[in-house]
């Protein structure tokens, strides 16, 4: 591929690879945009990036292909996942549009922009390809290194400075200066007693042998679930399970069986209903 051709074409293998992986990349990109949960978006994006890395390799950019996988997919996307974990799930995950006309405008602009870009690329005279081989004559990494440390050395140094600045900046942004001494455990308990709220430890979630107890609210003496017993994040996500009616019905059934065994008359044969259901 050292001789430039008037109409440059790639090998059939690369074409096949392009059409298959290109489809995957586009699907991954669309999923990034349209997946409801940030975690799914991040995973789809990682997939797209890996496909892109393959394309880099196919285009002769071996160093970049590896860096794309190691740095981008490996480091940056993991950073994203950490932040997703930190931030958690909020209402922002909803895909429902709140700004009037925003979605249509965005799609219109996107479509227009895409068409224009395509038209631009189509109009450009891009028939002559030199091919990657000539560039990689002395090896891809060596060539890059030669360029970076000669022609682009100032840009490289400045980029280094930028990275350090960014690291410091991120630290400054996320670091919280503690303005007062943290309270000791003793002080906290004394404060709880003074305020008279939750003097004992918070109540435990409803422990029930058949379930993972953390997502089940504990029941108050009247049979209603207590808000204090479960994690706030689970409640916001709507991942709580309410088993109070189930439990009481089980109890009822147990009592009934016991009565049948002891041959007593049933006091209340109907199944237990929650007050609001009964009122309907």
């Amino acid at each position, binding site marked *: 591929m050292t001789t430039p051709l008037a109409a440059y074409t790639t090998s059939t293998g690369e074409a096949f690879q392009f059409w298959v992986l290109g489809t995957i990349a586009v699907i991954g990109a669309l999923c990034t945009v349209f997946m409801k949960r940030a975690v799914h978006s991040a995973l789809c994006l990682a997939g797209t990036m890996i496909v892109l890395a393959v394309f880099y390799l196919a285009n002769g950019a071996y160093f970049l292909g590896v860096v794309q996988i190691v740095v981008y997919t490996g480091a940056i996307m993991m950073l994203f996942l950490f932040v997703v974990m930190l931030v958690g799930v909020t209402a922002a995950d909803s895909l429902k549009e709140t700004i009037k006309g*925003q979605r249509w405008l965005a799609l219109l*602009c996107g479509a*227009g922009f895409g068409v224009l*870009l395509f038209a*631009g690329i189509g109009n450009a005279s891009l028939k002559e390809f030199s091919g990657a081989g000539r560039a990689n004559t002395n090896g891809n990494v060596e060539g890059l290194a030669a360029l970076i440390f000669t022609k682009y050395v100032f840009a490289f140094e400045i980029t280094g400075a930028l990275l350090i600045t960014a690291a410091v900046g991120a630290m400054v942004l996320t670091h919280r200066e503690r303005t007062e001494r943290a309270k000791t455990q003793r002080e906290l308990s004394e404060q709880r007693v003074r305020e008279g709220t939750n003097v004992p430890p918070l109540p435990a979630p409803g422990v029930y042998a058949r379930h993972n107890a953390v997502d089940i609210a504990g029941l108050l003496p009247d049979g209603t679930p207590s808000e204090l017993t479960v994690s706030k994040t689970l409640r916001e996500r709507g991942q709580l399970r309410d088993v109070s009616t189930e439990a009481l019905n089980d109890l009822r059934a147990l009592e009934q069986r016991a009565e049948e065994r002891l041959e007593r008359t049933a006091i209340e044969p109907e199944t237990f209903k929650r007050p609001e259901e009964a009122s309907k």
Partner: protein
Amino acid sequence: MENLIALLIAAPLLGAAVLLAGGRRLDRVGHWIGTLLSAASFVFGLILFADLLGKNAEHRTLTQHLWTWIPVGGFQADVTFRLDQLSMTFVLLITGVGSLIHLYSVGYMEHDERRRRFFGYLNLFLAAMLLLVLADNYLLLYVGWEGVGLASYLLIGFWQHKPSAATAAKKAFLVNRVGDMGLSIAIMLMFTTFGSFAFGPVLGHTGDTSEGKLTAIGLMLLLAACGKSAQVPLQSWLGDAMEGPTPVSALIHAATMVTAGVYLIVRSGAIFNAAPDAQLAVTVVGAVTLLFGAIVGCAKDDIKKALAGSTMSQIGYMVLAAGLGPIGYVFAIMHLVTHGFFKAGLFLGAGSVMHGMNDEVDMRRYGGLRKYMPVTFITFGLGYLAIIGFPGLSGFFSKDKIIEAAFAKGGTEGWILGGAALLGAAITAFYMTRVMLMTFFGEERWRNQPTRSPEAPSAEPAAETRGEHTEPHPHESPKVMTIPMIVLAVGSVFGGAFFSIGDRFLNWLEPVTGHSEGDSPLSAATVTGATMVCLVIGVAIAWAQYGRKPVPAVAPRGSLLTRAARRDLLQDDFNHVVLVRGGEHLTRSLVYVDHTLVDGVVNGTAAGFGGMSGRLRRLQNGFVRSYAVSMFGGAALLVAATLLMRAV
């Protein structure tokens, strides 16, 4: 000796300052301070006069340089006084008659609470007038000119609690401003033409200048003179100025203010001599005014307004004479001086009559007063004989000369001007006889007139205390008022003869004003005879109308001319229709244009931007994503533009 000149002005100015700043503790002596300082100025004038008489005619010009007022590059205005024969004449007239009027006012204003202030204003008036006649350049003259305007405003509106007086003062001030504008433009023209406005350079270089410029300057000076001297078309303020106290009328009409215009024309004689067109305009204005004033004077029933018409007419004579050039300058000033005597006497007499008649001014409610106020009657009568030009009295000499000079102008103009002057003499005889007969002769129409006419409401607050509104009791005025009248009557009787015999006045003034004898188509005797005939005719008609028949207490409707003359020949209506209405229309249309067009454009622009901003504001909704859409759209547009440029 020159150093005395400043004192002439300083004395009354000091009086004004002391009296106006002194406050109430000067109330008891204020009037005497004012009179004394005025008299002191007169004494200084006499000393200077004696000094001048002791010199040759060529050396009778004294100048006193006080300080340089405005030194700016080539522009230099000095405070310099110039005392020559012309100024001297005016100084003596102003301070002499002024002092007599001060003295008279002591009695006349006796019951007025604000007498001290009144004397302060009088002194200010004198000081301004003296500054006017003593100035050595036109700029300083302008200061005096404006000072006179201010003082007249203050004095005419002295009874400011009367709306009519306040209006009259405002009117006098406004009309005078028109003339003042003329003077200021004339001064500016002088500066551009001559590079100076001192009398010497300006009047000495008239020969080197184009006639057009001189005519322009002359016409502007004439406009100024019209304003101050109440000449047509700026005459309308004079009649209303009678709202002021009577001594003020006497002062304005006899010694100061209205003579300023004549002084200005005579002083600027060199300019007018070189600009015949301007001169002709002056004579026309004078002739028209002398007839105008005389006709107005015939119709007025208010004694002061009749006299005001007379003043207008007599000043018209002077302006006419001044417009005739070197033939008339001397006679203009001579008539001015004699007029100063008899008109002051007449006004003081009228004031004395009013004083005795509960401030009644309507002559139809006078009559037969000669028995009750003999001194007033005699002095007024002598003034009357003097003004109509009774042979031997002062008016005879001065007016006769003016009529002669008018004929001597030559040609058709001479005949017309002389004829007008003669006709004016006849009318003068008529209206003055009318005043005389209605006031001092005939039946006593003031009997059974318990209340004063509603047209003349309680004018002076003093009148309230003076007596109940009962039948007036005519009485002679106190000595402090009659003595000035007697002095002035003596001046009226002998002044003219004293000036004329041996051409004393002519010889005195000639070095300043110059003189030339015109070749009159009529001999002096003929003119005098014609004047006498006119005089007799005027008196006879008046006698027929007001002497033989009883005077109705209510004015008859009268002819069209009479009614017009009662309304000052419609001058106010003319001013109202042409100037006021016209100005209002102009203003209204300008306001309309301003509101619709200018404001429309401005407000429309503002409203447009406001509306646009209100709509654009919606774009600023705070959502980052909306802004991002704009950015993205903009990027798309950029790509499109790039492609378009490539395609082209």
